[in-house]
C-alpha cells in the first residue's frame, strides 16, 4: 500500500501554481468565485479521504451548487483534458476520493437536499450529498426507512454509497446499495445529463445501473439518486451465543440458514476481538469462550417470536456454551455496542492496526482462521477477527507498532497474504471498502488480464480520455505488482467517532 498510489506529478511547483491560477480563472466563467477553492488552506481538508495515509493536493476544489454548473465543469474538463475526482463526504476507506495532483476535486457537499420524500409510493429522490442516515431519519415518522446501513451512515453520503455499492450489517436480508437504488441521474464526462434506471423496475436496453453502482466515480458523476423506502419491521430481537470453538460457531450459522431462516444481522467475533470489545464496552460477553455470535431477527412480531425459538434450539444443538436473548431494547443495544466498538477496542491493544476487508465463502471460515493463526505466528503479529458471518465479509485486524523497524513492512506482507488467502478459497479482496488506490494491486490477483482489459473497455465506453478518477479501482496491466491494506497509526483512524465494522 505504500508506493503504488504515489504516482507523483511530473510538473514542477511553478507549473502547478500557474496551472492552478489559469484554471481558476477559466472556471469563473461557469462558477461563482465562492465555489472555487484554490489556496493552500482551502485545499488542505480535501487532500485525502477516510484513508489518510494517502495525501495529494488537487489543483482546485470545486463546490458547484447546480446541476448546470456540474455539466459546465465536466464539459470544460473534457475539452481541456483535466482529470476530475468526485467526492461526497470523504469517509471512504480505500482512497477512492484521493485527489489528482493535476486535476480538480469536484465536491458534491452542497447537493444536500431531499428533493422528494414520497411515503405513499415508497421512494425518495435525493441529491448525492444527502447523508445516508438522513434519508431514514426523514422517512421514519412515516414508518419507512432506507435499508442499506454502512457503519459510517451518520456521515457518508448517498452519492458515495452508489460509488462504492455500500453494504451494511443488514445486507444478507436487505441487500446492498444496488438492490435499493431505483435510478440515478448522472452527468457524463461530456457534460450530458442522463437518467439511468427509472421509476419502473427495469429499463430499456442494458442495465447500466448495475455498473454505475460500485463504479467508484470512474464512469460518470451522480447528481441525483432515487431510492426505495421499505416499511420498518415492527419487531427486532437479538440473540447472543457463545461457543467453545470457531468451528461450532461457524456450523451454527450454517444450521440457522439450513432451517430456512435469514437473520437481519449475523455477526461473529473471535476470542481476541471479543476480549477487546468486552474490555472496552463492558457488555457482558463471555470472554472465556472461543467465539461469539450475535444474531438479530426482524419482521412481524409473530415471525420473530417463532424464529427466536428456532434459532435458540439450533444453537443449543451446536454446543453453545452460553445463550442469551436480549430481554429489553437497552440490553439489545448494549450487546451491539461491543460489536460496533470492536475496531477502536482492538485499537487499544497495540499502537497501530491494519484493517483488512475480504470476503470468503462462509464455510471456509474455520480453515481461513486456522491459516491466519499460522500466518500470525509466522509473522509474529497478533490478529483479531470480526466477521459478517451472514455474508462472509471478514475484517482481520493486524496489531503492530510502526515504530519498531521493519514491523510495518511485515504487517503489509501479512495483509497481502491474508487477501491472497481470501481469493484462494474463492472469495474477494474487497467486500465493502472498495478498491480505490488501496487495493488496486490486489485486483491483479483476483482478475486475469483479459477481464481487466474488459474493465478498461467499459471505462472507455463512458470516459474515452480516462479523465474521471484516473488510476483508481482497476489497475493497468503494467501495474499489477504489489498489495496493500488499510494502515491505522496510533489509533489515529479517520473519523474516529464513526462506527467502523
Amino acid at each position, binding site marked *: 500500500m505504500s508506493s503504488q498510489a504515489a504516482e507523483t506529478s511530473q510538473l514542477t511547483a511553478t507549473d502547478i501554481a500557474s496551472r492552478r491560477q489559469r484554471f481558476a480563472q477559466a472556471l469563473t466563467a461557469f462558477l461563482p468565485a465562492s465555489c472555487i477553492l484554490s489556496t493552500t488552506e482551502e485545499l488542505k481538508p480535501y487532500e485525502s479521504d477516510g484513508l489518510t495515509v494517502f495525501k495529494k493536493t488537487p489543483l482546485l476544489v470545486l463546490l458547484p451548487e447546480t446541476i448546470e454548473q456540474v455539466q459546465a465543469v465536466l464539459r470544460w474538463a473534457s475539452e481541456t483534458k483535466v482529470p476530475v475526482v468526485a467526492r461526497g463526504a470523504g469517509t471512504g476507506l480505500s482512497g477512492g476520493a484521493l485527489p489528482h495532483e493535476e486535476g480538480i476535486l469536484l465536491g458534491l457537499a452542497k447537493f444536500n437536499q431531499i428533493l422528494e420524500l414520497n411515503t405513499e*409510493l415508497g421512494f425518495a429522490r435525493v441529491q448525492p450529498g444527502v447523508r445516508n442516515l438522513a434519508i431514514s431519519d426523514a422517512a421514519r415518522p412515516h*414508518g419507512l426507512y432506507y435499508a442499506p446501513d454502512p457503519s459510517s451512515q451518520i456521515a457518508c453520503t448517498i452519492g458515495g454509497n452508489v460509488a462504492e455499492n455500500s*453494504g451494511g450489517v443488514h445486507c444478507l436480508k436487505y*441487500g*446492498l446499495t*444496488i*438492490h435499493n437504488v431505483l435510478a440515478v441521474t448522472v452527468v457524463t464526462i461530456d457534460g*450530458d445529463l*442522463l437518467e439511468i434506471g427509472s*421509476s*419502473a*423496475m*427495469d429499463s*430499456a*436496453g*442494458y*442495465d447500466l445501473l*448495475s*455498473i454505475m*453502482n*460500485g463504479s467508484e466515480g470512474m464512469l460518470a458523476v451522480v447528481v441525483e439518486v432515487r431510492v426505495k423506502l421499505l*416499511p420498518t*419491521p415492527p419487531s427486532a430481537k437479538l440473540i447472543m451465543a457463545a461457543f467453545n470453538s470457531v468451528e461450532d460457531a461457524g456450523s451454527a450459522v450454517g444450521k440457522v*440458514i*439450513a432451517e*430456512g*431462516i*435469514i437473520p437481519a444481522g449475523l455477526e461473529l467475533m473471535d476470542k481476541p476481538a471479543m476480549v477487546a470489545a468486552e474490555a472496552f464496552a463492558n457488555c457482558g460477553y463471555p470472554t472465556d469462550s472461543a467465539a461469539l455470535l450475535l444474531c438479530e431477527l426482524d*419482521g*412481524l412480531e*409473530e*415471525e420473530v*417470536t*417463532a424464529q427466536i425459538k428456532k434459532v435458540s434450539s439450533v444453537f443449543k444443538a451446536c454446543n453453545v456454551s452460553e445463550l442469551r436473548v436480549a430481554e429489553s431494547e437497552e440490553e439489545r443495544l448494549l450487546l451491539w455496542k461491543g460489536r460496533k466498538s470492536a475496531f477502536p477496542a482492538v485499537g487499544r491493544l497495540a499502537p497501530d492496526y491494519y484493517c483488512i476487508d475480504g470476503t*470468503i*465463502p*462462509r464455510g471456509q471460515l474455520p480453515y481461513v482462521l486456522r491459516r491466519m493463526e499460522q500466518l500470525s505466528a509466522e509473522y509474529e503479529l497478533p490478529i483479531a477477527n470480526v466477521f*459478517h458471518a451472514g*455474508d*462472509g465479509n471478514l475484517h482481520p485486524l493486524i496489531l503492530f507498532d510502526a515504530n519498531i523497524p521493519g514491523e510495518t513492512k511485515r504487517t503489509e506482507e501479512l495483509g497481502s497474504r491474508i487477501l491472497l488467502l481470501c*481469493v484462494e*478459497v*474463492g472469495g*474477494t479482496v*474487497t*467486500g465493502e471498502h472498495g*478498491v480505490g488506490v488501496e*487495493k488496486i494491486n490486489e485486483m*491483479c*490477483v*483476483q*482478475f486475469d488480464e*483479459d477481464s481487466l*482489459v*474488459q*474493465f478498461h473497455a467499459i*471505462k*472507455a465506453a*463512458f470516459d474515452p480520455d480516462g479523465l474521471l478518477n484516473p488510476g483508481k479501482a482497476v489497475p493497468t496491466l503494467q501495474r*499489477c505488482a504489489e498489495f496493500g491494506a488499510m494502515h491505522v497509526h496510533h489509533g489515529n483512524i479517520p473519523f474516529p467517532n464513526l462506527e467502523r465494522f
Partner: protein
Amino acid sequence: MSDTDNPAPAENRPTSSQNWPGQDRTDQLVERVQQAITDNAPLNIVGGKSKSFLGRSQTAPSLSTLEHTGVVSYEPTELVVTVRAGTTMLELTQLLAQHGQMLPFEPPVLNGGTIGGVLACGLSGPARPFAGSARDFVLGMRVINGQGKALRFGGEVMKNVAGYDAARLQVGAFGTLGVLLETSMKVLPLPEAQLTLQHELQSANTTDGIVKLMRQPLPISAAAVIGTSQFIRLSGSASAVSAAARTCGGEEVENADAFWQSIREYEHPFFSSEKALWRISVAEYVAPIELDGDWLIDWAGGQRFIKTDLEAETIYAAAAAVKGHASCYSALQMADSVALFQPMDGVMRSLQKRVRDSFDPQRLFNPGRFHPELDA
C-alpha cells in the same frame, strides 16, 4: 496471474464435495467464437430455444450452450449455487427444491428453458417487486466476450465490490454482451407457508390498493390484478402469514401455486390469444394505461401485459408517456420492420452502443435480436 495459480487444498475449495453430472464445454465454445472472429461471421446464441417469442429471430449459424451443463458447486448453507449456462431450469429448480431452496426471483422454467436463457433475457416472475430481480441475485458470471476471451466477473460471495459489476450487466442483454458460460447466484429458503387472497376491485386494472399494502410491513411476495380481481400472495412463517392475512382481507384462493405458476410460465388462459402480446414496464403506482386491449397486471403493477392489435409505435408512445418502456412478447408474428423493444435515442443510445462496442466490437453475438439501433 490468475486465481487458479494458488489453489486451496481440494478439501477447502468452496465447492461442495458432491460430483454433479454435467460437462464443461468452455474450450469448444471459446474455439467456436474465435472461429467466428476470424470469419467475421455472426453467431446466433441458443440454449433450449424456449424464448423465441422474445426478440428478432436469427438467421446466423447457431452457437448452442445446451451441452455446457451441470451444477459446478452448490452448498445450501452458503445460499449460493454455481451452474453452467446450458443447465435446464427444470433441473436447477428441482435440485434447489430438494434442499428446501429456490431462485427467489421466480424465473419461468418454460419448455426446455435454460438458466443461461433466463439470465440473457432477464426474466423474473411474480416475486420480483418483493424479492428482487434476476440481476439482483447474480453474484458472478463467466462469459466469452467478442474477443473470444473467457472472462470472469464478480464471484461466489454476496459482498464483493472488486471491479465493475459486469456480471449483472449481462442480465437482460440478450447475449449481445457475450456468451454466458456459468453463473453464481444467491438462493434463499423456500417459505414455510404461503397463502393467496383474492379481492374484488371497484374498477379494473387499478393497483392503488396494492400500493397501499406495500407501505406496510407485510410479508407480501406477489401481487397481480386481472380485470377487477386483485390477488395478493403472502409468504413467510405460518404465524406471520395468518396474521398478515387478517390485515389484508379477501378470500383465500385455492390451488394458488398453480395460479402463480400459470402467470410465471405465461400459461394462464390470458396468454393464449390471436392478438399480439406486449409487456409494459412501468412504476407500479401508475394509473391504468389507456390502450385498447386486454390486460394482465403483475409485479404489483410494475409489469403489465396487454393483448392488442395496436401498432407498435402507439404502444411505445403510451409506455414512454408514463415513463415506462414496452417490449413485444409475440416476436414470431411481427413483421421485420417492427421494433420489438422500446427504441432508444440520444445520449442513452450512443452510450449503450459504446457499451456494446466494448464487449462485442464485431457484432458477432445475436445482431438484431435485441435493440437493432445498438448494432449499427
